[in-house]
C-alpha cells in the first residue's frame, strides 16, 4: 500500500503502519516522515504522568472523549515498560479506554518502552510526529508510570499533567523536587477516596514554595472513573495553552524540544554508526581485553568511536 498517500488521505491503517515502521526504525518510514515533516507543528501535545495506578489511562480516556465531543481529533500514545529479560510486554493502558475503541475521532497506540529509559517508549517521539502529520488536534502521551523520575515527558509535551491520588503521601514527598518542575497542571484523581482534599492541599502548599515561573499550576480534583472534574482539567489545559502561547513560552519550549529531539536522534545515529562499523566479534574481542585488564574501558570507548569521529571531522 502507498503509506504516504494513505497518511495524506487520512487512512488510519496507513497511520498505524507508519508508526510501526518508524518504531522499528525502518528507513522507508523515516523517508516518508522527512517528506511530510512540514505538516507537523499543529498538534498540541499533552503529557500525562504520575505514579502507577493513579488513573492516568482513565483520565486520558475521559479527556479524549471530551475533546472528541468538541469535534477534535485525538491521538493517544500510551507507554508501558518492556521486560528487559524477555523483550516482551503487556501493554495495559488500552483496557481503560474501551469506550473509545470505535470513536472515529480517536486513535490509540500502545507502545512498549523497548529499552528506552526516561518514561517514554523508544518510538514515542516519532509517533507523535506522525500523528501530528496525520492531523491530530491533540496528542496525549501517557508515560510508562513506573514511579521513577519521568522527566522526559516535560521535554516532549506542551502541557504536562501530573496525576496523583490520595494516599500517596510519602511518594509525593519523595518526588517533590521532580514533580514540582514537571507539572503544569496537577490532578488529584480518585477524589472519591478519603484524603483527596488533604493531598490537594499538600500539593498546593508545595507549589507555593515553588514560585519559579509566572505560571502557577492549578490543582484539580477528579474522579476520572465517574467522569467528574474532567471539564475542569480541560479548561486548565486550554488556559495553560493560552498562557504559553501568549507569553512566547510555547515557541521557545518547542525549540527546546526540537533541540532535545535532534540531540537524541544524533545519539541514536552515533550508536547505530558504531554498531554498523563494529562486528559482534570485534566488540566481544574488545570486551575480552577489558575483562582481562589488558586495556581499560575508558580508552576502549574512545577507540570504538574513532572511525566516526573521523567522519565527523571530515
Amino acid at each position, binding site marked *: 500500500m502507498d503509506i504516504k498517500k494513505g497518511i495524506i488521505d487520512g487512512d488510519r491503517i496507513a497511520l498505524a503502519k507508519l508508526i510501526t515502521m518508524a518504531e522499528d526504525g525502518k528507513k522507508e518510514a523515516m523517508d516518508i516522515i522527512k517528506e511530510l515533516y512540514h505538516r507537523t507543528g499543529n498538534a498540541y501535545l499533552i503529557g500525562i504522568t504520575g505514579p502507577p*495506578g493513579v488513573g492516568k489511562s482513565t483520565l486520558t480516556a475521559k479527556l479524549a472523549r471530551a475533546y472528541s465531543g468538541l469535534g477534535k481529533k485525538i491521538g493517544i500514545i500510551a507507554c508501558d515498560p518492556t521486560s528487559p529479560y524477555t523483550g516482551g510486554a*503487556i501493554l*495495559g493502558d488500552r*483496557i*481503560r479506554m*474501551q469506550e473509545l475503541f470505535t470513536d472515529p475521532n480517536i486513535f490509540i497506540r500502545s507502545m512498549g518502552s523497548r529499552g528506552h529509559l526516561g518514561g517514554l517508549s523508544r518510538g514515542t517521539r516519532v509517533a507523535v510526529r506522525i500523528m501530528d502529520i496525520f492531523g491530530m488536534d491533540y496528542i496525549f502521551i501517557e508515560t510508562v508510570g513506573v514511579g521513577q523520575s519521568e522527566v522526559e515527558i516535560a521535554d516532549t509535551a506542551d502541557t504536562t499533567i501530573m496525576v496523583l491520588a490520595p494516599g500517596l503521601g510519602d511518594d509525593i514527598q519523595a518526588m517533590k523536587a521532580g514533580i514540582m518542575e514537571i507539572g503544569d497542571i496537577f490532578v488529584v484523581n480518585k477524589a472519591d477516596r478519603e484524603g483527596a482534599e488533604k493531598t490537594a492541599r499538600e500539593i498546593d502548599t508545595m507549589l507555593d514554595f515553588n514560585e519559579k515561573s509566572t505560571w502557577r499550576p492549578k490543582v484539580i480534583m477528579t474522579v476520572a*472513573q*465517574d467522569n467528574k472534574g474532567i471539564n475542569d482539567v480541560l479548561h486548565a489545559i486550554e488556559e495553560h495553552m493560552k498562557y504559553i502561547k501568549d507569553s512566547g513560552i510555547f515557541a521557545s519550549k518547542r525549540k527546546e524540544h526540537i533541540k532535545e529531539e535532534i540531540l537524541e536522534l544524533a545519539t541514536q545515529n552515533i550508536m547505530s554508526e558504531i554498531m554498523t562499523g563494529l562486528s559482534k566479534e570485534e566488540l566481544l574481542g574488545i570486551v575480552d581485553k577489558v575483562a582481562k585488564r589488558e586495556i581499560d574501558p575508558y580508552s576502549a570507548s574512545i577507540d570504538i568511536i574513532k572511525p566516526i569521529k573521523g567522519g565527523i571531522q571530515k
Partner: protein
Amino acid sequence: MLSKDEIDKIKRAREEWEEKSVSKTISRFPERKPKFATDSGIVVKRVYTPEDLQGQDYLNDIGFPGEYPYTRGVQPTMYRGRFWTMRQYAGFGDAEESNVRYKYLLSQGQTGLSIAFDLPTQIGYDSDHPLAEGEVGKVGVAISSLADMEVLFDGIPLDKVSTSMTINAPAAILLAMYIAVAEKQGVPMDKLDGTIQNDILKEYVARGTYIFPPAPSMRLITDIFEFCSKNVPNWNTISISGYHIREAGATAVQEVAFTLADGIAYVDAAIKAGLDVDEFAPRLSFFFNAHNNLFQEVAKFRAARRLWAKIMKERFNAKNPKSWQLRFHTQTGGSTLTAQQPDNNIVRVTLQALEAVLGGTQSLHTNSRDEALSLPTEDSVRIALRTQQIIAYESGAADTVDPLAGSYYVEALTDEIEKRAMEYIKKIDDLGGAPKAIEKGYIQKEIQDAAYEYQKAVESGEIVVVGMNKFQIEEEPPKNLLKVDPAVAEKQKARLARLKSERDNNRVKEALSGVEKAAKGEENLMPYIIEAVKAYATLGEVCDVLRSVFGVYQESVIL
C-alpha cells in the same frame, strides 16, 4: 490432647525412626520428589503424628457436629438423617427445553433444581439485544421476562422443590420473577425454598457477569437481605462463592480466604445498611469447589467452617448459632477435567464428590465427563448424578459424621489452611476490605499469578494430568456432543415481540418509573422490581433503568 511428656516421647521415637529406618530406606530408594506440597504451597510431610496436633484442644477446636465451631459439620447427625441435596446445574436453549430437562432430572432422583441462565440474561440483556447475538440459550436458559419464567417452571410445584439460581447482578429481578410465578401457582412467598447466587464481588474477580459498580450492587444485595428476612424467610439470599475463584486459578487457601473476605464485606454492608446481624446472617450460604487433592480439600471445608464460625461470633458478635454456621454447596472442579480421554473425568469427579461428602457439604453438583468439550449430554449428566448416588447409597461414607476427624494429617491441614487463610484476610483488611482490594486489583492479581504458575507447572510436567500431559493416546474426535439449536434465538425474539405487543404498556411504563425513583432514592427496591416484572417489564428494561441510575462497572485488570 496428649501431655507434654507423651509428646516428647513420640518426638524422640520419631527422630529415631527417621535416623534409622527412613534414612536407610531413602539411601536405597529415594523418594519420588525432594519436596511434596499441595497447590497452596503447604508442604506435606512424610508422616503426621500426635506432635502435629500439639496445640489443638479437642473440645474448643474440633468439638461435636452441630456445635460451635462446627469443624465437624453444621448438623448433629449430618447424612445419617438425610443425604446432601443432589443438585445438577443445568439449563440451555429456551424455557420450554430446559423445563423438559428439569422434569427429567427430578424423575431421576435429583432432589433440587439448579438453574443456569444464558449470558445475556446474566448480564441484563434481553434475547433481542444486539450484544446477545450468538449467545441466546447457548450456555444456559434465556429468560427475558416473567412469561419465560412461567414456562420454565410449568408443572413444577414451587412449594415442593428447592431451586438454586445462578444469577448475580440481576438477582433481584429473577427472584422477583420466581416470587411472581409462585404466586400464580398459589404458593406464597414464605413457602419458597431456594438460593440466588447474588454474589457480586466474585463476579468482579472471577466470573465476569457484573453490570453495576460496587456501591449500588451492594445496595441491591442488602435490599434483598432485608426483603427476604421479612418476606421469604427460607430463602438463601446469597451464595458466597469460592467456586469461581478457584476455577479462575486460585489455590485452596486463596479460595477460602477470598470467599470469607467477600462474606465479611457483605456482613459489613448489611450492618451498615441498618440490619441486625442475626436477622440476615442465618440465610447466608456458601459455595465451594472440590479439586483433586483429596485430603487438602476435605481439610479446606472443615477449616472454612471453623473460620467462619469464629468470624461471625467474634468479629460480628452474632448471637444466633445459625449465624455462625457455614452451610455450603459444592461443585466438583471443572478445570481439573480434561478434553483428552474424557471418561477419565468420571474418576476425577468421583474423588472430588467424595471429598465434598467427607467435608460435610449440604448440596453437591457433580460435573460431567464432557466438561471440557461442551455442555453435558443427558447420558453424561446421568453418570454424574449416579456418581453421587453410589457414594450416598453404596460407599458407606455417609454413615458416620466427619469420618476423617482425628487423622493427624487432616487435622494438621485443617489448622494450616485456616492459619494461611486468616493471614490473607488480615492483608485484605489492611487494604480496606474486599471491595477495596478488588478495586486495587489485588485479589485478581493473586488469582492470575496462581493460574499462571499452575499452567507453567503443567507444561513443565511438574504437575501430571493423566491423559493430558502423561499417558496420552491417539484419540478419535469426540462424538455426540450436545448442540444447542440455533433456532432458539429467533424463537425467543418472536416471543419477546409478541409479549411487547400484548402487555399493558402503560402499566409497564409506570412500573419502570417506580423502579427508577426507588433506585434514585433509598427505599428497598424489591417491591418495585416485583411490580415491574408482574407488569411483564422485561429483564433488559429493568436493567436499563438501573444502568441509567447506577452506571456500569469497568473491570480493573492488572496482568
